[in-house]
């Protein structure tokens, strides 16, 4: 009987580049920026790493395929590097590789790196990707905002809400993330906004306005993992361990079967249930202190609050407007600004979320530090609501 990943692996070093429109930096620069911070934090030498995982989504964009971009950028000593890609769950997938390698005893120290250099496309928004030779023949050439906007019309229909009412809750989601982002020096967007500005913004994909959409950013984030025993031998007494690390890809049900009504993310429900079980969590609403979810669009964050079991079905708009997920609410969400304001360099995002949880648990979050959190959750949803790869991870404090 598999026992899961809980407390088998500790994160001993993390780094994160400044996110944003990094006209000054290529993917190699961003990776080095994140890795330098992570190595300094871990207190180990680069040559101690036994294996590394590199997460990049848009490989053709600028970073390139394979192990090489990371191996070359850090001049790693020819250790195994695996390049992974799982849509917006790519960063978490890289972490999963490193964590499982350590848990398997394949190496003492493993490194996970996520990077994305988006701002070389020449236009705003994400680059388009082909869907495959067959799917290009029938699927719409949708954009990310258009694909996620579907959630809004379906959610409003299911719960008998007007789009106007729903947009007010969505506006609070974005307002809150801008408030949080304004306190984060590494965040892409640090301006504060009003809910009215969100509601009045130009329409991108109905009913998502420009402030309902996250930043398109460049950036990199990095984690160094080892076993709790090795962490202890390095003098680390209180460490952050992985409590759960789950991945749930769609199998075609949402895209093709009538059982899905389009108003929620099926894979989040599946991944969350498994992650709570792996971490031994029975009452997530009471036990989880902070969350970093995949707020690519305001509506995504809203429906995910229900899919993670943190709001009752149909109650997320109320809970959101009630401040439940604000920085001073019961479960602060996107305390670092989230994808919305910290930014969304796709391959880096899962690791960026882990980075914030890590800082918060260790009491190192500076101006945005919460009061003694012990357990945090990260969530990525890669793809579109119709078909996606979702990860849910839990991180907590552990005494070695």
């Amino acid at each position, binding site marked *: 009987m598999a026992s899961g990943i809980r407390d088998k692996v500790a994160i001993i070093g993390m780094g994160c580049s400044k996110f944003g429109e990094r006209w000054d930096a290529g993917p190699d620069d961003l990776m080095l920026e994140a890795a330098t911070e992570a190595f300094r934090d871990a207190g180990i030498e680069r040559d101690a790493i036994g294996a590394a995982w590199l997460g990049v989504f848009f490989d053709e964009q600028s970073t390139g395929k394979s192990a090489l971009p990371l191996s070359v950028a850090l001049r790693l000593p020819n250790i195994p590097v695996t390049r992974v890609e799982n849509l917006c769950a790519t960063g978490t997938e890289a972490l999963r590789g490193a964590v499982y390698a350590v848990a398997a005893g394949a190496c003492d120290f493993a490194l996970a790196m996520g990077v994305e250099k988006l701002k070389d*496309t*020449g*236009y705003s*928004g994400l680059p*388009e990707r082909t869907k495959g*030779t*067959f799917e*290009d*023949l*029938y*699927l*719409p*050439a*949708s*954009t990310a*905002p*258009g*694909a996620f*906007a*579907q*959630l*809004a*019309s*379906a959610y*409003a*229909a299911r719960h008998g809400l007007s789009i106007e009412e729903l947009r007010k809750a969505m506006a609070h989601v974005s307002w809150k993330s801008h408030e949080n982002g304004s306190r984060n020096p590494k965040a892409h967007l640090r301006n504060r906004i009003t809910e009215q500005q969100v509601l009045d913004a130009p*329409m*991108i*994909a*109905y009913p*998502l306005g420009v402030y309902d959409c996250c930043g398109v950013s460049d950036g990199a984030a990095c984690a160094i993992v080892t076993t709790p025993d090795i962490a202890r031998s390095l003098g680390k007494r209180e460490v952050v361990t992985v409590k759960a690390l789950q991945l749930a890809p769609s*199998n*075609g*049900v*949402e*895209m*093709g*079967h*009538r*059982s*899905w*009504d*389009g*108003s929620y993310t099926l894979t989040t429900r599946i991944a969350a249930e498994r992650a709570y079980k792996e971490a031994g969590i029975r009452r997530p609403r009471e036990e989880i202190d902070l969350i970093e979810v995949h707020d690519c669009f305001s509506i995504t964050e809203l429906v995910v609050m229900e899919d993670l079991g943190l709001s009752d079905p149909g109650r997320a708009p109320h809970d959101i407007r009630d401040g439940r997920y604000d920085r001073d609410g019961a479960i602060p969400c996107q305390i670092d600004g989230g994808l919305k304001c910290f930014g969304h360099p796709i391959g880096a995002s899962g690791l960026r979320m882990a980075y914030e949880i890590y800082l918060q648990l260790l009491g190192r979050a500076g101006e945005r530090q919460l009061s003694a959190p012990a357990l945090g959750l990260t969530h990525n949803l890669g793809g*579109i609501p*119709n078909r996606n790869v979702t990860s849910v991870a839990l991180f907590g404090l552990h005494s070695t």
Partner: protein
Amino acid sequence: MALPAGIARVGAYLPRLRLPRGRIAEAIGWANPQARAQASGARAVCNWDEDALTLAVEAARRCLEDHDRGAIGSLTLASTTLPFADHDNAALVCGALDLAQATRTSNLGSSLRAGADALVDAARQGEACSLVIAADARCARPASSQELAFGHGAAAFLMTSDVGAAIAVVDGSAHVTADFVDHYRMAGEPFDYALEERWVREEAYAKLVPGAIGRALESAGVKAEGIRHLVMPCPQAIAKRIAASSGLASARITDNLHANCGETGTAHPLLMLALALESAAAGERLMVVGFGQGVTAFVVTVQPAIDRKRPKTVTTALARAVEEQSYVRYLSHAGLLDLDFGMRAERDNRTAQSAAWRKHRDVTAFVGGRCAACGTVQYPKAHVCVNPDCRKTDTQVEYRLADSMGRVKSFTEDWQAYSPRPPYIYGNVEFEEGGNLLMEFTDLEPGEIAVNAPVRFVFRIKDVDRMRGFQRYFWKATRV
């Protein structure tokens, strides 16, 4: 003496958009002052994703409805504006209509007479069951008189050798072939070059048509007084004059659809015949004239079977109209104005032809799968059933979705995505038999769609590959 095949069913289709002639005159009147005098009514014009081929498919669907597709032995497609010069346009129509692979296809073109010829040929050949479609979406040079005159549209006729069951029969025909250049268009050129209308009226209509009508009457063994309707695509005044000079003075002149459609090229005599058949009584005779480098004239006699199922598709198509608000947008759709749609429009739409052939049933015929084990309908058809409670392997049989209905589950109007007619509207559609697909919507203005709205499916241009000069087609959802 009736020709061996008669008309079993009729279907007509016009694109939804109507460009008011007043809007054209307003835009180009400074260059063509005469346009202001011709500014009444509206033209039927294609949406960006329509062309002669998609018009043909829609007309044929209205004609065939639930008719057994496997029984159709041949398909003739008449048009002067088909998208492909080499690549069987009719084969693509055949695929979209889900006709049998054994169907013989032919394409007729290079004269506006082609539609009338196709119908007469099918009547003469007397196949058990054949389909004739005429469709045109002619492009006119801005500020030309054609720009005011042309309409886009299609008509389809299902022919049967079971003459007793036909709603109308063809009783005789006659042809005049004359290299009379009233207008022409060189291969590869976008526009017609048209000659003086008075010359065409006096030398072609007045001199060539009455002779053809006379011989058609002779061939049918019918006297001129026996003709109750003259179906002739030309200005009403000319039709009246021809009627008078051909002994058809008592015949009613069938409306030429100028007011709300325009002149649809090869489709026009057939479209007008379809209109005449909406009201003609059993036993009445019609003289139908096709004109273009000569004349094709034929006599149609309405049969009693018409009262069992009276075709009304022209009236329906005329009523289904939405005004095109922008002349500039019309120009852009017609490819006459190269607007800057931003870098997203640079997307490479290469078609992997090997994949397209592998999946031609899925894509062209919109055939999905139905699981023989659990009954779940799904798109695309796959080896493993999508139903989470089934997931059985190789249980699916073909299930065509093109003629199904759907319901909108979610939608967006996307202003970021590239569309030749922003916003790009798409969403999740549930088929009435079950199954879900994220689909593009068409023929919708912003604010027109809502969750739970019923939709039907139409065959349209999906993407244009400018780099390789190709366009591909798929089905889109549209409001019922």
